[in-house]
């Protein structure tokens, strides 16, 4: 707990509001070519013990959303609106110094490439010790080091007592990501933001890291935001899913909603481009035609319109992120098509996909 006087409810207080609430978050960057609206009105809530996946292509705003939560996108040329509350405590208006107390200690973040995310010139142990002592300088160096050894052991690094003195380049990719996670957990944060934590790893290591995150999520009640473009990763661990496109959330729902009853054509496209192990003949993987839109110059109306084979007149108006299924108010999407039409259009050879209707 920081010394800031707060009337906010205690973090674990049941019914006192979500652990993390992001409201109408907008992040823009001034560039030489004009303003880039990287994140445009994102809302979500996160409860303890929950895994929220944010899915989207490169440039969809998912990483910027995550980094903005802990204030890493703050800079003279960025413009941040909206609200991020951690246990009711507003983060966007905090000073840099106050935010430093939140980073690492209440919200930890791990990044995409463990190869480059650790400083090559310090030992792994030293970097963990640094994180611990940054938040509590009363902890002695040696007891912080003991803690680091314990953490490394807890994330599955064998012979942690010895490996704590290794430099990052002496670790394998998977071990480095484990070390990153250990560093993130050092101060027992309530939220872990994992920004594509498995992208740079090979498949078996990916699974190990995901299970580690899932374990920690369950055993410690660690609320997790998992950012990824890999729906396989999502299927593995997520409870709820946000699909982002062009800086906006285009669909949100539970894992089952997204995988079995996806409402937005973009989600269909993502699902359709997954490899199917249950299909006998090798065939060319479908893809979503076109490229993600430039955030400098988004298409009018629905941002997905130029790439969508099911586009019709109404798509020139911006669709809201609304519940469009009468039976499920928590499953929201931004597509003007009627649910009935959607169910028909997304059916391609017995599975979900995005294709020109014949």
């Amino acid at each position, binding site marked *: 707990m920081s010394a800031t006087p707060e009337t906010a409810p205690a973090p674990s207080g049941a019914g006192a509001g979500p652990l993390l609430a992001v409201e109408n978050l907008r992040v823009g960057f001034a560039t030489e070519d004009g303003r880039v609206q990287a994140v445009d009105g994102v809302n979500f809530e996160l409860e303890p013990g929950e895994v929220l996946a944010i899915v989207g292509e490169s440039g969809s705003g998912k990483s910027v959303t995550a980094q903005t939560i*802990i204030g*890493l996108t703050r800079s*003279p040329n960025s413009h941040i609106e909206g609200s991020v509350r951690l246990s009711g405590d507003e983060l966007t208006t905090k000073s*840099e*110094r106050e935010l*430093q*107390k*939140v*980073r*690492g*200690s209440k919200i*930890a*973040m791990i*990044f*995409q*490439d463990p190869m*480059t*995310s*650790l*400083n*090559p*010139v310090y030992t792994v142990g030293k970097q963990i010790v*640094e*994180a611990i002592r*940054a*938040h509590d300088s009363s902890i002695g160096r040696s007891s912080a080091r003991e803690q680091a050894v314990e953490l490394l052991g807890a994330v599955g690094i064998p012979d942690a007592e010895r490996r704590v003195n290794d*430099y990052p*380049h002496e670790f394998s990719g998977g071990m480095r990501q484990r070390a*990153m996670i250990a*560093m*993130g957990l*050092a101060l027992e944060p309530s939220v872990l933001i994992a920004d594509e934590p498995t992208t740079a790893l090979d498949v078996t290591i990916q699974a190990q890291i995901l299970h580690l995150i899932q374990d920690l999520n369950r055993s410690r009640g660690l609320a997790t935001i998992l950012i990824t473009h890999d729906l396989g990763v999502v299927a593995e661990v997520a409870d709820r899913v946000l699909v982002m496109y062009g800086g906006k959330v285009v669909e949100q729902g539970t894992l089952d909603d997204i995988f079995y009853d996806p409402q937005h054509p973009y989600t269909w496209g993502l699902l359709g481009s997954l490899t199917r192990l249950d299909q006998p003949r090798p065939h060319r993987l479908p893809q979503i035609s076109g490229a993600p839109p430039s955030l400098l110059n988004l298409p009018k109306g629905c941002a997905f319109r130029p790439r969508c084979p099911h586009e019709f007149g109404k798509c020139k108006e911006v669709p809201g992120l609304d519940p469009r299924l009468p039976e499920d108010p928590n499953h929201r999407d931004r597509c003007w098509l009627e649910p009935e039409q959607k169910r028909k259009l997304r059916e391609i050879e017995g599975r979900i996909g995005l294709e020109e209707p014949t």
Partner: protein
Amino acid sequence: MLRFAVRRLLGAIAVLFAISVLVFLIFNVVPATNPAARIAGKNATPQLIKNVEKEWGFDKSLPEQYWTQMKLIFTGKATSYSLAHINIDKRILEGIPQTASLCIGAAIIWLAFGIFFGYISAIRAGGFIDRFVTVIALIGISMPVFWLASIFLYYLTYKIELFPASGYEPLSNPVEWAKHLILPWVCLAVLFAGFYSRVLRSSMLDVMNEDYVRTARAKGLSQRRVMLRHVLRNSLIPIVTLFGLDFGVLIGGGAIVTESLFQIEGVGYFVAEALNQQDFPSIMAVTIFGAFFIVLFNTIVDIAYAYLDPRIRLGTSAA
């Protein structure tokens, strides 16, 4: 480490050999005039020229000439005829304290200012302070040493007699020593300080985009700690590289202009004299002397690399 040292030593010997051969060829073989006559100086008697010819082996074959001359230089028996019959090696050795005092003092100043200004302008990149420092640095880089030295000498020693005009006081009298050296230190340091601050600035801006810097911020470190421990620390390699080269050159007699203008009779001053008189034995000796220091400091730089970046290991591949 031992392997590394041995390889480096062998490398250094090879470099020195190559340089000495090159200098030897340029001065003895290329010119059409009699080298012995040039070594003997302007008003030499025919007898002296004969003696020089014998002493420096010009009556023998080229390899023998080379061998004779190297022996003279490396055994400390080489005498300069054009420069008042001084013993060359002794003259260089006498110059070392002066040159070292000048270079070490200047190096401390330029490293301190170069790193300070580079750091300041990197963390304020694009802002007013950055622009201001950039202008100052460019002025420093653009100012010729001889001009700056003349301005200093005219205004600070002649107009207002703030500093002694020139010369060198031994370190046994530290106050006088420093007083005599402040102006030359500053003169020599200005160029390098400006240059180093620019290099450090761009190196730091590169490092700031590294993922591990984002990690450092994400774990809640203070801005200052991120900058000092993660950005600055990882940006020092180009500075160390430059420093090794620059300092080696200066210690090896490269501060010719500064030493000449401030009458510091160090190695650089001797280089100026030797060049002025086209005194081959002296030029040969100072060139080898200078090359030795450049090689030496490059080796020290390589050792420093391994310390700065643990991924670099001194081993078979390092040499």
